[in-house]
């Protein structure tokens, strides 16, 4: 029945090819072709190549549309003589496809919150935006020493139901450029200021965690007009002491075994430090320039094992709504550092959280921030 039907299949170009993309058909349906005529352009991860017809006939069908990626051997078209009926061709295609097994199907990559790079004062800053901003003022999330946007994984999505939320990686961190300048909170605050201006935001609700809290305070000091409210989570800059075992261990530990106990300082529930998180930080620390950047930041902010800059008076003088959130079990910065502040600054303490209440007490933290910025 099919003696004058020739199946055209995805060719195999070279030894490594298992699938190919039908980039374009070279001839329309109905063209009479000779053996050797170019039928289609096939694209592989390696090359794009013209595929020549193995036989003569009329190109009766283009079974696979342009742009589709399919396994080698898949039926892509049909050559047949003019006297072969469409019914015969349909039945040929069905038979062919019934007998052809293409192996596994490819799963689509899961959708992630989009990241983009913003050029800020010669630095490449990776930001992650979400939410539509119904409520007007945007929220800016500033992570701490050694952190990145993932520190906000439970915060950002919760706030984005009402606000335009921007998380970003500080210089020296995550996917941002690894030059850190002098590494001081003041220096970082200048970058944050530029970022806010480049994003064309009149002002923002600032939420800063740990060293990011000190950066938020520096921003409030230098550009108060950009800060609508200030939420400081376990911030640096309010006391002197800091757990240098964490800072030094974070810089020095380069294997899972040695890094894991260091990261456990961050949380009250030690099980939160997952294998994946440790691996992620090891991978981050392998990037060119990261260790040097972290050392620069540490020596600018915590020389000789103490916090270098006090921002208490900045906070006391800041005249817009400010609040502090802190885990009572914090092993890196003491929650006592929030003692003795003016009563206009609300302080909320979480008995069962360590240095990262936004992860350990996410629901409570999200609720209090939501109402604070509402």
């Amino acid at each position, binding site marked *: 029945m099919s003696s004058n039907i020739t199946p055209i299949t995805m*060719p*195999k*170009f*070279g*030894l490594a090819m298992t699938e190919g993309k039908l980039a374009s058909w070279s001839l329309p349906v109905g063209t009479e072709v000779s053996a050797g005529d170019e039928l289609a352009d096939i694209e592989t991860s390696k090359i*794009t*190549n013209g595929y020549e017809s*193995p036989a003569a006939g009329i190109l009766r069908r283009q079974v696979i549309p342009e742009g589709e990626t399919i396994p080698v*051997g898949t039926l892509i078209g049909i050559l047949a003589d003019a006297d072969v009926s469409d019914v015969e061709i349909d039945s040929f295609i069905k038979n062919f496809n019934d007998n052809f097994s293409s192996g596994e199907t490819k799963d689509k990559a899961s959708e992630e919150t989009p990241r983009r790079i913003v050029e800020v004062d010669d630095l490449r800053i990776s930001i992650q935006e979400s939410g539509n901003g119904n409520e007007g003022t945007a929220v800016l999330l500033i992570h701490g020493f050694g952190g990145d946007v993932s520190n906000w994984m439970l915060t950002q999505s919760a706030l984005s139901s009402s606000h335009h939320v921007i998380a970003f990686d500080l210089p020296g961190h995550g996917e941002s450029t690894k030059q850190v300048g002098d590494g001081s909170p003041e220096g970082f605050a200048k970058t944050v200021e530029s970022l806010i201006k480049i994003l064309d935001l009149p002002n923002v609700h600032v939420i800063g965690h740990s060293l990011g809290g000190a950066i938020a305070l520096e921003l409030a000091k230098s550009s108060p007009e950009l800060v609508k409210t200030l939420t400081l989570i376990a911030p640096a800059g309010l006391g002197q002491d800091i757990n240098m075992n964490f800072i030094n261990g974070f810089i020095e530990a380069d294997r899972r075994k040695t890094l894991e106990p260091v990261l456990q300082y961050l949380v009250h529930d030690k099980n939160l430090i997952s294998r994946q998180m440790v691996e992620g930080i090891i991978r981050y620390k392998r990037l060119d320039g990261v260790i040097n950047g972290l050392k620069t930041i540490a020596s600018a902010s915590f020389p000789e094992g103490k916090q270098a800059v006090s921002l208490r008076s900045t906070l006391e003088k800041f005249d817009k709504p400010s609040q502090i959130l802190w885990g009572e079990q914090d092993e890196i910065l003491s929650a006592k550092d929030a003692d003795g502040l003016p009563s206009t600054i609300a302080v909320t303490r979480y008995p069962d959280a360590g240095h990262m209440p936004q992860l350990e007490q996410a629901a409570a933290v999200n609720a209090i921030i939501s109402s604070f910025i509402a």
Partner: protein
Amino acid sequence: MQISRDILTRSYRSMRTIRDFEERLHVEFATGEIPGFVHLYCGEEASGVGVCAHLTDTDTIASTHRGHGHCIAKGVAVEGMMAEIYGRQTGVCHGKGGSMHIADLSLGMLGANGIVGGGPPLICGAALSHKLLKDNNVAIAFYGDGASNEGSTLESLNLATVWQLPAVFVVEDNGYGEATGASYACAGTQKDRAAGFGMPYFECDGTDFFAVYKTAGEAIAHARSGKGPAMLHVHLSRWYGHFEGDAMSYRADGEVAKQRAEHDCLVNFRKYVSEVSLLETSVLDEIDADVKSEIDAAVIAAKAAPLPEDADLMRDVYVSY
């Protein structure tokens, strides 16, 4: 030059067989049914056939990764070759070697070769056997312009001269070592290389069977006469990529088409033999038809042939255990 009718028909049949075998593989490989990779000899048929026309089953040749043509020219069975390329138990190497390792030592075919420059040293050894066993046979190393730059090849030219071996070094110069042009990769000339090692140099147009036949005859006669090795430099062109799937972007548009149009050894052979009335067109047509059905049969047989069995995996690692 006198060529017997028998040699003419046999040579034409060999060239046609190579052409059809390779063109068929070009199509079959693209279906994904043939494992591994294949390197096609299309366009170069007259070289292998013109040289091997002077050889018997007891002369030895060593080939290259582009070895199908040499195998056919030396008489290796097409059905066994096709089965080998399909990885079948009935293949000439029982599915152990594939396209790049087809060999038939009973026919003096010392193997295609996956290693560039692998053949010339082996041919020194084969020639040494022929010399010491006084069997009046010769040994022929086929290799490309690419392999001419391997140390193993250059050392072999030296050794063959030092030992005055009955060897012929056939440089099949298609202008490209893989994707790199010989004009870049080959310093000096093949002629000067031969002279440097003190061996006579012959050259010919490798797309003209009669030129190859005549020149190869002189080179082989030299070697067979005990006067030491010779070099035969054959100029030709390959019509397909280095391997199947190679897009050949390193060759100018139209380069291959021109070769196909003007330097097709089969077309030119047919033209010449009819012009000088050496063979009748009907004889050639009959061969063409014959070969076509032979290749068809070989493909059908290969696809139907049994795969190797589990026990074959451990067989033939050694002669004795």
